[in-house]
């Protein structure tokens, strides 16, 4: 089929500039990585252009999809040609001052919140598995700040910062982590199950993979509302965030297929931080370039530097616009890195210190700061003011959480069933939920 042939050729074209970048080889050598351990990320250094030492805002490597759609005036017959890419002219200033400050504030919030979580965890204020987002802020901020309140967001277990970016108050998230009744899920969810109906955060899924079908279902709902319920103005989108580990799960592939098949308004965002706990992405994945799986299913696949919020945002804009227009799903692979272990229980002894240092030097917050200074979008004082504001906000969240009450016993049975008749009929012929012990939370169910 001609169209599929062009798909592949365009896909490989995307690869070419990546492989031709000599700086990367140089950089790999600079790191002095001589190990042939399969898990090393050396290979990735070789492949990915944005890791070059002078990589700040390297324009030619960001691949944006839909410009081509416009430029080439693609129609339905050649819909697969939207898999092409163009070079993004990044010499233009990409953001206004206000946008820059908003992005900065959101990233700083994510970072400060997570640092505080670590403190609180070690202080015994929160328990269980707590997975922190440090280092990956550019992805959450770059994507989610483009969403409307009505848009759906689905994350995995590393979900605090996604919720914050979507507008869930820090107080509610922190309180949830403290297991308090004022938490966004009344203390019933915890770190890995952050939900907010008000902000259309659909989770928070602790098992990877399972979130992707749920996100696909939310996208199906949007299409259904538009086409069956005739809500013409329903142009909402769904964003599903997950990691490189999840991209080896069957549900990822199944949902890519269904989303492309039905042209659902969804953006699959792979946060490739190179490690699935202790499993190197390169040891786990036959073809480590995850974005290439998009074209295989008939949707654009885009690879972007996930440590650069502006690049992420540009790609996200296009992907969101595509979804809103009804042009279907997009797969975006953001190459990023977590600055901490998998969870706070992870001693993080496996990853090479050189690799960690390499990415630490590419801290997305510092990079944005630098960009804003260089482009006269903000001065030191303005950013300091934001830092201070966020520190206070996070402090306030901790105080709020600390002072909030623990859930009371009567809460125990309240949310098992949306309709508590589901607890059934007791020996006395009445519904068990009518038993006073039920509302006290002391009934055996």
């Amino acid at each position: 089929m001609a169209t599929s042939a062009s798909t592949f050729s365009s896909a490989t074209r995307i690869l070419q500039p990546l492989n031709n970048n000599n700086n990367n080889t140089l950089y790999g050598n600079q790191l002095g990585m001589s190990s042939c351990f399969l898990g090393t990320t050396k290979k990735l250094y070789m492949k990915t252009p944005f890791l070059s030492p002078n990589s700040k805002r390297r324009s030619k490597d960001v691949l944006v999809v839909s410009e081509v759609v416009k430029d080439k005036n693609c129609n339905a017959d050649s819909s697969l040609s939207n898999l092409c890419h163009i070079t993004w002219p990044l010499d233009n200033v990409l953001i206004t001052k206000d946008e820059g400050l908003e992005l900065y504030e959101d990233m700083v919030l994510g970072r400060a919140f997570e640092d505080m979580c670590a403190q609180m965890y070690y202080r015994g204020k929160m328990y269980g598995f707590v997975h922190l987002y440090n280092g990956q802020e550019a992805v959450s901020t770059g994507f989610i700040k483009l969403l409307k309140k009505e848009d759906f967001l689905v994350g995995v277990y590393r979900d605090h910062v996604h919720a914050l970016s979507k507008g869930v108050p820090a107080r509610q998230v922190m309180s949830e982590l403290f297991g308090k009744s004022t938490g966004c899920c009344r203390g019933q969810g915890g770190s890995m199950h952050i939900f907010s109906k008000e902000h259309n955060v659909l989770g928070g899924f602790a098992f990877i993979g399972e979130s992707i079908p749920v996100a696909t279902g939310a996208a199906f709902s949007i299409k259904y509302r538009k086409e069956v319920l005739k809500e013409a103005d329903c142009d909402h989108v769904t964003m599903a965030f997950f990691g490189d580990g999840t991209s080896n799960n069957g549900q990822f592939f199944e949902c890519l297929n269904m989303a492309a098949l039905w042209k659902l308004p969804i953006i699959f965002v792979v946060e490739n931080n190179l490690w699935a706990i202790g499993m190197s992405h390169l040891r786990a994945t036959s073809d480590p370039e995850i974005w290439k799986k998009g074209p295989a299913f008939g949707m654009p696949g885009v690879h972007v530097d996930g440590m650069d919020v502006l690049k992420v945002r540009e790609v996200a804009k296009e992907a969101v616009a595509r979804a809103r227009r009804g042009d279907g799903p997009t797969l975006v692979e953001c190459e990023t890195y977590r600055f901490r272990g998998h969870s706070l229980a992870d001693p993080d002894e496996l990853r090479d210190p050189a690799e960690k240092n390499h990415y630490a030097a590419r801290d997305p917050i510092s990079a944005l700061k630098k960009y804003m200074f260089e482009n006269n979008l903000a001065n030191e004082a303005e950013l300091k003011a934001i830092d201070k504001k966020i520190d206070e906000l996070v402090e306030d969240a901790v105080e709020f959480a600390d002072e909030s009450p623990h859930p009371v016993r009567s809460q125990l049975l309240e949310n098992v069933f949306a309709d508590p008749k589901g607890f059934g009929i007791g020996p006395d012929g009445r519904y068990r939920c009518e038993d006073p012990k039920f509302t006290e939370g002391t009934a055996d169910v």
Partner: protein
Amino acid sequence: MAAIIQGIGTATALNSTNSLDTNKTLFANSRRSLSDRKGRFFMVRSDGCLSYGLNGHGGRAEKLITNAVAAKEDTAVAYTSSKPGHELLLFEALREGLEEEMDRDPTVCVMGEDVGHYGGSYKVTKGLAPKYGDLRVLDTPIAENSFTGMGIGAAMTGLRPVVEGMNMGFLLLAFNQISNNCGMLHYTSGGQFKIPIVIRGPGGVGRQLGAEHSQRLESYFQSIPGIQMVACSTPYNAKGLMKAAIRSDNPVILFEHVLLYNLKERIPDEEYVLNLEEAEMVRPGEHVTILTYSRMRYHVMQAAKTLVNKGYDPEVIDIRSLKPFDLYTIRNSVKKTHRVLIVEECMRTGGIGASLTAAITENFHDYLDAPIVCLSSQDVPTPYAGTLENWTVVQPPQIVTAVDQLCQ
């Protein structure tokens, strides 16, 4: 994915041997208030011999499974309803219930393998795709965990999906979605999101379908918190439970049985919705309480005929609600008969019968004059060979023997 298409032609063609004439009365509005709960039994009196024919294998096949769904009752008083009603096969009753709900509520949609253009492997969704369109009756790729998860995502965001497992066994692939998302998500979200989804499909031991297609998933699903499970057994209750399941804000798993799709019954013309939590009194009696559900109801009724001839007066209850149990109906019966026999197609270990035994022992031990007897399927992978398969599930003579012993 394995092949599944057994029994397809059968659902469409009405075999002349399929005649289960049922005269019954329904005096119980399913949505009655709780204060009316006393005297709440309604009866579905089955009268007439039922056999069924699949694939026209004729005599041999019927011999192998003579007891599959045989129900012949003593000639008890036959009630006639005030309205004539209409005759339907069980799969048509399910379809009628589904269609009524889709007419009533535009957020009700169907998704699953071959539910659309093909009309469903057992024709429960036949004709719905042309009527409602491909989006409301969504043919999905063969990806059970993903389309089940999709149903959950759709339910969280305002729709009321009915997800069909082409064969219930396939839903093992969606176990994580059913357990972690269907069952728990309302709770973990602090009550913010509800999941008004119905998961339904054909299950049970069919006719020589082999182990994987002969699953009784109710035992696997029963410990998942936050879901309800019902099993239908007659066209009347199939339609009423389907409608109730769709209207429920809870995730509901509706179990259908592959061998019951061609049961015929006269059901009311007027709309009715059953109660998801209620058991059904099939045959009131005095000597022993027989609790059963789904296809085993017919084995029990066949045994009941013998038992009556032997002078017993058994009380037969189709528990219908597999989770939660209707403890009120069970209590009233145990209090009267003091003896309990459970007959199920589920596995002996960790099955519905085991849970039922525990519930009765815990709650009604004082009423019991004898230990509860539970007849379940053997703990073996369901064999292919017809003879072995018959020995795997409970047969009417075993029921008769068990009652004999229980009432000594």
